[in-house]
């Protein structure tokens, strides 16, 4: 499989193979208070659940809550003792959990169907017609 789907699969497999699920990324994350069940769970089990999602698995409720709450703070990466790009692992896990590879979503997907019309409507308010023609 090529393209973005192939990229997601390849990078997921590569990073999942290197991750030891020590939980350092979970411990460092500032978003765990917003992810149900994560603060009460052992960090390593949450990380293992995230790694499971990278391997086509269902994860765990706490891992899925953590994946859904990821806002790309990025401080998990310097916290990884293996030197892995943990933030990118979360990005991959979030793509997968949203169903990007064609499977059923594991976490809620909030997609704004009016995203593009809204961007264009604001452009008509703040840009001149000439700017809209050149810059959009």
């Amino acid at each position, binding site marked *: 499989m090529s*393209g*973005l*789907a192939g*990229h*997601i699969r390849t990078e997921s497999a590569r990073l999942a193979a290197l991750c030891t699920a020590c939980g350092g990324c979970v411990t460092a994350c*500032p*978003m765990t208070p*917003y992810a149900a069940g994560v603060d009460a769970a052992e960090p390593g089990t949450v990380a293992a659940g995230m790694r499971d999602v990278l391997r086509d698995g269902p994860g765990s409720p706490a891992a899925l809550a953590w994946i859904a*709450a990821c*806002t*790309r*703070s*990025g*401080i998990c*990466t*310097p916290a990884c003792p293996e030197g892995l790009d943990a*933030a*990118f692992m979360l*990005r991959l896990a*979030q*793509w997968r959990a*949203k*169903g*990007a*590879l*064609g499977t059923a*979503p594991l976490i809620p*997907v*909030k*997609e*704004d169907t*009016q*995203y*593009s*019309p*809204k*961007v*264009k*409507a*604001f*452009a*008509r*308010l*703040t*840009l001149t017609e000439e*700017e809209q023609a*050149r*810059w*959009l």
Partner: protein
Amino acid sequence: MAVNPESMAPDQGQAEPAIFWYGCNMTRHGEVIRATTRLLEAVGMAAEPTGGPASCCGSPKDASARINEGMARRTIEAFNATGRGKVVTWCPSCHMNMQDSMAPVTTPAFETVHVTEVLHARRDRLRPLLTRPVPARVLLHGHLGFNGRVPVNGLVADLLRLIPGLTLLDEPYRAPGHMCSSLAGVPGALADAQRATLASMAAVGADTLCTIFHSCHREMVGLEQNHPVTVVNWIHLLAASAGIAAEDGYKAMRNAADPRAALGEAAVAAAGELPFARLIEPELRKAPIV
């Protein structure tokens, strides 16, 4: 694509052609697009503003790799076709997506750099333009995210220190996430970040909150409705000092008691009555969360 610091050094000759990829939601802030383009021009870069849905990074369609990839490929191919060797980003999502999902799939024929990197690297050209004092006690609104890729919090702070009359206050709080729109999707997170930001401002005696990114600006300007603070973007401050007109149009409509009346019927008609009523007005009339 790795950033080559040499390529951001001041060019004493002809202006360097580039694309200023401002992203999608920056269309709320036309004056920021214009002023940033002027500032880039002033430091020797002829950056053509490009953005909106036709130049999407694909992230609005994260639930489908196929659609995401198609949107991203179209954007990279369009950029490649311009022959411009540099794309200057504004949005941290666009910048990270270029590195994480776009460039690994569709080969770019350009280097990607963030606007803060360009202006910071060429600040010797910027400094003589910043002649007008901007008296303000400023707290910079920084996030934890993206700063590990591009050290925006330090780069913008350095640029603000070039402005005469401005006092930049030091405070360690950094909000989670890479910008406020990411927090808005997690119940409670944005309100907590706003409360912590206001507490930081009070602790250091700041009267002005300076946002770095557009979505933070969009979420923060409403603080002016309930708190004695001024919210500006870093580009507004640089523009004010350089004498570039950049009135904050979004803040004016967001904080107006009646946005429709404040804009006037001609502007509403330009946006389209139905789009204004359904897409714009609800956002402008939304009560501040803090």
